């Protein structure tokens, strides 16, 4: 018995009949079955009780004075508070017409009088359970609906549910905020016509169209959408097809306004450009500094051909002053003048190229050509430092992708440092410049000197700006080198060979054939 009680404990059954005898029988039949039983002997009373207690099941007599069972049922179903209860009609009338009318008014079942108590018990039990499950289901549904709404409401991205034609069936609050109008004004409008200026001209090429029509998911960034007031904004969206099995029912579109995002991206780009500009500027300053340091050597280097030209010119004049000039000899001397003027302009060309302000950008470069050019450049210093430079480059070295001037700047810097180190150690060994391919797909250039070696704290400080061990140095050489090499996807560092001296190296990525400009 307890079991029955607990099963039915919260189920309320309302018994309605104008005949007290009938009521008594029903009451007797259902008492002790664990239901809460309510009794009414007329329509108005029944409605009142139903309103207050919301019974799961109502056993309702049809033939009653004042208000008959049909009307009671009608009014129960009309009131949302009581609409979900199961109405089981009780009547002696046992014709089809009566039953159909009862069902058509929302009745759930029918028991004919005189009734069998077993039948009453069974039917009440069945309907009580159905209603209870239904109510639980509804409660759960409301809960889920609430959760879903809370989620949809709290999402900052706009969400639309569209049907296959693009009609907006659902919009979350964020969609309203983004589009600048109440959600209810959006519902029912056509997504394409509302949000795209080109909807009329090219409907099929519009975003989301393929999702709606063909079930293809889309994801695009920086498209132009229109708000309700027809002003435009940049948006990013994802659309996924709404499928029921294989059947396409439209699309769900998640979108957001990326105006602010684009602005901060642009600000970031601008900041990056500024950094790049300053890096180039610093590199240029560093090149100018290097040239300043090399000025004496450069002047000497230019003076050599000029001196030779002046001498040859004077010799030529003498040759022409005699009666029968030796034209062959004269020709030879003039050729020599020409060669020397080329030599001078080559030196100047190299300097001008090196001093040129903006970096020329990445190119596919031959490492051996670049290093040979740098070596000739550094010869100016080699003379000043009484040093020599030895170039060891394998024949089959792949090209690299880098900025030629900046790479030359780095190589020159390292070679000049190496020459200075060699001189201060009073070593006669040449500075060795070599290159090879690494397993990481880079070309590694090494500059090895036999100088005094680096200080112990070099690891920490060497590449820092304004750190210098030279009396006249500014300390921007190596820090600039590092930023230049890193900006080109390479690395720079140094090693202490066992035999003494220092080995600086830098790496640069090998150019893949498709890089060829």
């Amino acid at each position, binding site marked *: 018995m307890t079991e029955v009680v607990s099963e039915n404990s919260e189920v309320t059954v309302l018994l309605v009949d104008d005949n007290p005898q009938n009521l008594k029988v029903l009451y007797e039949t259902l008492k002790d079955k664990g239901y809460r039983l309510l009794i009414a002997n007329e329509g108005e009373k029944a409605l009142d009780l139903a309103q207050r207690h919301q019974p799961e099941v109502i056993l309702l007599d049809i033939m009653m004075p004042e208000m008959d069972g049909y009307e009671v049922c009608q009014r129960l179903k009309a009131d949302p508070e009581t609409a979900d209860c199961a109405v089981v009609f009780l009547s002696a009338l046992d014709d089809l017409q009566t039953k159909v009318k009862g069902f058509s008014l929302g009745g759930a079942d029918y028991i004919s009088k005189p009734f069998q108590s077993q039948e009453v018990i069974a039917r009440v039990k069945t309907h009580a359970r159905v209603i209870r499950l239904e109510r639980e289901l509804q409660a759960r549904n409301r809960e889920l609906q609430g959760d879903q709404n809370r989620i949809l409401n709290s999402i900052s991205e706009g969400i639309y549910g569209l049907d296959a034609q693009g009609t907006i069936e659902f919009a979350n609050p964020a969609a309203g905020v983004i589009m600048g109008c109440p959600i209810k004004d959006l519902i029912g409008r056509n997504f394409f016509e509302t949000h795209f200026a080109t909807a009329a001209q090219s409907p099929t090429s519009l975003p989301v169209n393929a999702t709606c029509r063909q079930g293809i998911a889309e994801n695009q960034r920086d498209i132009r959408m229109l708000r309700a007031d027809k002003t435009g904004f940049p948006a990013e969206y994802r659309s996924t097809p709404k499928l029921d099995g294989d059947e396409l029912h439209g699309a769900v579109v998640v979108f957001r306004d990326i105006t602010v995002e684009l602005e901060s991206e642009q600000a970031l780009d601008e900041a990056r450009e500024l950094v790049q500009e300053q890096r180039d500027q610093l590199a240029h300053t560093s090149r100018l500094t290097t040239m300043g340091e090399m000025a*004496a050597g450069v*002047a*000497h280097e230019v*003076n*050599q*051909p*000029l*001196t*030779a*030209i*002046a*001498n*040859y010119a*004077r*010799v030529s004049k*003498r*040759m022409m002053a005699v009666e029968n000039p030796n034209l062959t000899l004269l020709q030879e*001397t003039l050729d*020599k003048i020409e*060669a*020397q003027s080329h*030599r001078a302009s080559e030196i100047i060309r190299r300097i001008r190229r090196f001093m040129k302000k903006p970096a020329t950008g990445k190119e596919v470069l031959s490492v051996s050509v670049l290093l040979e050019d740098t070596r000739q450049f550094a010869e100016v210093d*080699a*003379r*000043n430092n*009484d040093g*020599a430079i030895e170039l060891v480059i394998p024949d089959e070295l792949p090209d690299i992708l880098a900025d030629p001037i900046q790479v030359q700047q780095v190589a020159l810097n390292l070679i000049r440092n190496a020459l200075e180190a060699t001189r201060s150690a009073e070593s006669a060994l040449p500075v060795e410049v070599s290159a090879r391919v690494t397993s990481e797909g880079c070309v590694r250039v090494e500059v090895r000197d036999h100088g005094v070696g680096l200080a112990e704290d070099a690891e920490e400080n060497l590449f820092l700006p304004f750190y210098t061990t030279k009396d006249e140095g500014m300390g921007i050489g190596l820090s600039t080198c590092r930023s230049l090499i890193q900006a080109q996807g390479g690395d720079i560092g140094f090693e202490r060979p066992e035999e003494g001296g220092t080995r600086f190296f830098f790496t640069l990525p090998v150019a893949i054939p498709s890089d060829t400009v």
Partner: protein
Amino acid sequence: MTDIQQIVYVVEDDEAVRDSLELLLKSDDKPVKAYERATTFLKDYSEQMAGCIVLDIRMPGMDGMELQKKLNDRHSILPIIFVTGHGDVPMAVDAMKEGAVDFIQKPYREEALLEKIEAALAQDLEQRKTLDEKQEIIRRIKSLTPREHEIMDRMIEGQANKVIAIELEISQRTVEIHRSRVMHKMGTHSLAHLVRMVLSVKNLIDAR
């Protein structure tokens, strides 16, 4: 007096400068010999060389300053004209202190260089002449007998014949004979000239 031909020795590592300078000097009828390296010149060097050196101050390996020191160690009297680049003036000053006759900055005017070369050659000739004269004096001094040498020293100190005779315990007549032999061998008639000659080579003799 030697008749060694004066040569302009050019030591310059830059091929174009060396070649053009060689041609230039040849066109001015100067005998020229050009060297690419200081070490090669040093190997060739002998006291018999006459003329001057046009020397590049900056060179790989042994530079101009080093060559000058090596030549000084070997008592070379060849005048040196240093050829300097821009900004090498402090080096040139040091070179002058070491006895270089002059320096000229690249790029130079031919006239200026030729003038300096002419001056250096003249100086070389002068020095060489003086040196020849001195060597002649030394040769003559060496031809004296020990007794004649002793008497000459006393003559230069201004001792009278009588004093010399007493101090050397010889007759005054003997002193007179030695004295006339000294004057004859030294090729002079005046005591004043003799004094000047001997004093001019005093350093050289003391050094031996």
